[in-house]
């Protein structure tokens, strides 16, 4: 099987879906001749032409709003927001509108929209090229939110998202784009939306994460295996709808839970995971539910030292897991 990077997987998923279904098209800033600033749509203009690969004006509300309108007419737009940090001007279309359309028309309006958003830090992006934005969409009814960690999941989930008739926020961690490589089968496959995956089974502690941090969790689990602590690593993959069953099953087995994310801790996705477990797996818990997350400052600063201080990493995760295992 071919080994690919996350960005290659993303590109391949879109290209294959555009080949399969002429209703699929991409729009966003610089997606045309430039092929996107991360090259996700490299070569698309030549292959699919100007009418399906649309360089938009620099206007995020329009990038989403126009896509919604096109979806009403039966097309299947993929909108690219260039960096997560620039999604806010489109918040009305994403938070105010997109998730309310099907519900608010009593099912009359279908919204087969995918919004691809490179997000996350660790790339010296500072306060405006590093943001984690998942919690906002996670809280918004009617949206689906996906945050894959591997090339395989990225391809399979993006294809599933494109075929889904609902608005999907597809979050791609920028740092995984070229850093994370893995096997991706040729040809068509999808990964189901709404299913978490146990990426490494274990008996003693559960760690739940997604995106870039998932890889650090796997490294930490590997470290702890050498110390006799078997860590189960659960990759949420889809944040919304949350796969409560997989989460609960893991905690029921291990009795101990660490949640790791890069996003600010307060009101993050991890809070919901903790709340669900504290309600539904209460009787199984042997230790406090612990979170290792970004602190509550406005994303990671630009300076190397501060960025590092902000971010969870393998060592910090291993330490938290050790503490939890010893509780």
């Amino acid at each position, binding site marked *: 099987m071919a080994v690919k990077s996350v960005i290659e997987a993303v590109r391949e998923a879109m290209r294959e879906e555009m080949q399969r279904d002429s209703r699929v098209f991409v729009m966003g800033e610089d997606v045309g001749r430039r092929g996107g600033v991360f090259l996700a749509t490299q070569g698309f203009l030549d292959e699919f032409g100007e009418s399906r690969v649309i360089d938009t004006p620099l206007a995020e509300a*329009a990038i989403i709003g126009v896509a*919604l309108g096109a979806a009403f007419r039966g097309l299947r737009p993929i909108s690219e927001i260039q960096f997560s940090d620039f999604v806010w001007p489109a918040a009305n*279309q994403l938070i105010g509108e997109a998730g*309310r359309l*099907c519900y608010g028309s009593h099912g*009359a309006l279908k919204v087969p929209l995918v919004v691809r958003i490179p997000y996350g830090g660790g790339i010296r992006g500072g306060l405006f090229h590093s943001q984690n934005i998942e919690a906002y969409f996670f809280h918004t009814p009617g949206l689906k939110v996906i945050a894959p960690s591997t090339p395989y999941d990225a391809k399979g989930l993006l294809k599933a998202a494109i075929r889904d008739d609902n608005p999907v926020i597809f979050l791609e961690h920028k740092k995984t784009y070229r850093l994370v490589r893995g096997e991706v089968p040729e040809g068509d496959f999808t990964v189901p939306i709404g299913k978490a995956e146990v990426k490494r089974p274990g008996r003693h502690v559960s760690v739940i994460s997604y995106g870039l941090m998932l890889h650090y969790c796997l490294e930490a689990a590997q470290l702890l295996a050498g110390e006799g602590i078997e860590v189960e690593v659960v990759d949420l993959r889809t944040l919304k709808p949350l796969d409560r069953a997989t989460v609960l099953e893991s905690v029921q087995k291990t009795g101990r839970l660490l949640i790791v994310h890069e996003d600010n801790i307060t009101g993050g996705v991890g809070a919901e995971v903790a709340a669900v477990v504290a309600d539904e797996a209460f009787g199984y818990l042997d230790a406090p539910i612990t979170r290792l997350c970004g602190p509550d400052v406005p994303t990671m600063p630009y300076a190397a030292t501060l960025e590092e201080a902000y971010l969870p990493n393998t060592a910090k995760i291993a330490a938290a897991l050790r503490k939890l295992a010893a509780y």
Partner: protein
Amino acid sequence: MAQARPTHPQHSAPAGEHRRQSDGLPKGITPQDLVQACTRMVGTREMDQRIWALNRQGKVPIIASCQGHEAAQLGSLLAAEKDGDCFLFPYYRDLAIKSAGLTPTQVMYSFMGKEGDPYSNGRQFPLQGADLPRRIIQTSNVVGSSLTHAVGYALACRMLGDKTVVLVYFGDGASSQGEAHEAMNFAGVHRLPVVFICENNRYAISVPQSRQMAVADVASRAAAYGFPGFVVDGMELLPCYEATREAIIHARKSGPVLLEMKVERFMPHTTDDDDRGYRPKEEVDALRQRDPVVTFPAWLVQQGIMSQPQVDEVLAQAQREVDQATEAADAAPFPSASGLLDHLYSP
């Protein structure tokens, strides 16, 4: 340093005669069309007034009246219907447009939030949601928001080879929203078949136009996006019909048009508003001289298209229908609470 060049190739007015109502019937319009428009106009006004009364009785939570806007709404609707291939994104105030294809009872269901509301089955404000059989979408109350949707719909139509022209309605206040700018700019760049219709009633709730913009005409903004803009007397139906007809033809051939229909808001902003504090009663009273629901039937009688008894019967019929609709809707059930979670997602 030079004064900014006038933008783009200057567009001339779309071809066609600019006639006042008294000039006679425009091409393509039959007396029957005008009788229908009159019937709608009178019916809409009856409905609108009844709903105010029902609001005061606690039976309808809210209405944003279209009183004063009827000629603009029905004139442009007539053009869209005559064209036969238009898709509409109306404004929340466009009762005349949104109810045109519905029975009075359906309209009443919607205002009371009853089972059978064709727009959202009682989930949204009255006549808000989608009525796809009648090619109408109005997704939300967030003003300005629908303009990008309309542009996207038009983009999709072009990609699919449709000849559809999209009409999107908004207010003078809504023109201040960033999304209005982004939408018009996008439509201009891609020369999309969209007619932007601003129903300028000089107020955004209480804020007068002078505190909303430093220009006399919203239509003048079209130049900022490289397409033509026109001002229309929105108190008369036929000029609104003609301007819209020409705009549709232009939009299909050459791209967007901005029409500004100068209308008057006869009522407070909604049933929740009290306009006495910010708008002298005399101002509105004077405007009623040009009430389209008075002037248009009178003109039809004067032209011999309808007789006064016919007009009277239209009104009497409208009243009967609204009476029946009120009774039927009042007796109808609310949507079942068990449906609360339905249609969160599309299957």
